[in-house]
């Protein structure tokens, strides 16, 4: 983990409200593991002080990139920044996904929204190819599908309005696949909490392991403030653990879903 001033190489619109930000940050790029994130200070923000967390989408040699959706003042201000400008990045942060081993379980990735970006490195570094189940409200919410296909992964898209792929929820197509064959499978998921909850339930039902990436509001990103916690089971009950440090990736069986919001 380092704090570096990173220069923006490019910051361009992907689809609709999604942007791709590429930063020059060699030390961060070299150290990145799949599922880890960056904590970015967005300099145009004056009265909004806190950094914003973003999953690392790709890490190539000298650069790291982020795929983000503009949803508020921080991401809006970020979208207005251009090549050559600088921002402060802390990273790589957090405990990421376990990269599948050759000959081990077949990885099934389940993604909603920018969850696709959070799992790209996992697919890239996995010696074992698998399938990606990606869901969104509309066609524009299905991100970086081509990149996953290029890696040789099968992608099954679902949209709630039926404008692309199958109509429905991403968990329906996951269910269909597990009903077909659930032997030697492992789930990896990143997306809205409701989706993660549903994935955890499916994992339980089919007795397959699942690693899920949880989002919480973060202040420090490095483990000191205790704002980013989720309830996690322990030998004697449960405790709050930090999504920025023990997470964002947790074993779905460890999460106390009854208490999680």
């Amino acid at each position, binding site marked *: 983990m380092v704090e570096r001033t990173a220069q923006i190489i490019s910051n361009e619109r992907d689809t609709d409200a999604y942007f791709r930000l590429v930063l020059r940050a060699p030390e961060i790029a070299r150290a990145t593991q799949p599922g880890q994130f960056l904590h970015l200070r967005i300099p145009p923000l004056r009265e909004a*002080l806190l*950094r914003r967390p973003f999953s690392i989408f790709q890490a190539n040699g000298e650069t790291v990139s982020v795929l983000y959706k503009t949803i508020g003042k921080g991401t809006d201000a970020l979208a207005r920044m251009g090549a050559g400008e600088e921002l402060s990045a802390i990273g790589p942060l957090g405990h990421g996904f376990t990269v599948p081993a050759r000959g081990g379980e077949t990885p099934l990735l389940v993604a909603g929204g920018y969850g696709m970006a959070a799992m790209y490195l996992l697919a890239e570094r996995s010696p074992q190819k698998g399938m990606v189940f990606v869901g969104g409200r509309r066609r524009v919410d299905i991100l970086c599908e081509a990149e996953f296909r290029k890696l040789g992964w099968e992608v099954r898209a679902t949209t709630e309005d039926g404008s692309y792929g199958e109509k429905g929820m991403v968990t329906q197509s996951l269910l269909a696949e597990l009903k077909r064959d659930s032997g030697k499978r492992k789930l990896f998921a990143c997306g809205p909490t409701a989706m993660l909850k549903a994935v955890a339930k499916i994992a339980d039902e089919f007795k397959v392991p699942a690693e899920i990436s949880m989002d919480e509001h973060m*202040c*420090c990103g490095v483990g*000191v403030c205790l*704002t980013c916690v989720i309830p996690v089971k322990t030998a004697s009950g449960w405790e709050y653990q930090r999504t920025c440090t023990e997470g964002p990736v947790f074993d779905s069986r460890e999460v106390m879903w009854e208490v999680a919001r």
Partner: protein
Amino acid sequence: MKCGMRNGERESPKMNLSVSIGKLTLQNPVMVASGTFGYGAEYARLLDLNQLGAVVVKGIRLSPVRGNPTPRTAEVTSGMLNAIGLQGPGVDGFIEKYWSFLKSLRVPAIINIWGTTVEEYAEVARRFGDLGGVGALELNVSCPNIKEGGAQFGTDPKLLARVVAACRKVTTLPLITKLSPNVTSVVPYALVAEAEGSDALSITNSFPAMAIDIESRRPKLANVTGGLTGPCIKPIAIKLVWDARRAVKIPIIGMGGIQCAADAIEFLLAGANAVAIGTANFYEPQTALAVIAGIQDYLKCHDITDIRELTGAVRLS
């Protein structure tokens, strides 16, 4: 700073940056505030902790504390709300997991402690006194996010007197009483703490506050209310330090929204002997180090050789 400085001009053999809190001497007056720096180890990868005046750890009571449900934070204009609920490992958990690292630092560790009864405060104080190697104890009588304990001790002078006296009895460690801003006047509390043997005051803790999401109409914090911190509280904190300075002789550690050396110097001029960096650590972990360097530049620019000259040096006429 107003005057131009060249690199390397900062160090001056005659410049004194060190300040005292009771029998504890700090190499410089800049610490990091409780709850914004974990137990020290987390930030050690991003900055050299041995450059700091002191490290103040997250509040600890006797037994482990689970803390509040989430969301525990909300960003507001020039600040933030938090309602952590003093999550922590308890005295034993702290000693087992974090003490060996803190002990290995060359700068003092100040332990922020709290309890739900006067007896618990005293017991925690005794445990840390017996531990050996602790720099000082900061009595948190002002956490706004705990239903029982915390703030009630900071808003009742009689209870405050009992807490300070009980801790004073069981330990010779320097005691710092961290006052609540949630009172009509901070002066009676400052006086009580001084009279009962507190070696210093910390001013201020966070301000009780609230934010609402207008779409869902729900409070932004699960705890409904929380503590407001960051640059938005700085002018109020400066006034609290100024009020207390005129009432007591003991050292004051000023905090509330410090982002740069100029902010820290303002606290010193209002009457603080030292300062602590809180919320700013979250967005700029290097803040404390930048503040130390900036204070040195200021002293040099103004031909001041001893930082202690700044304390309370605001000019009223």
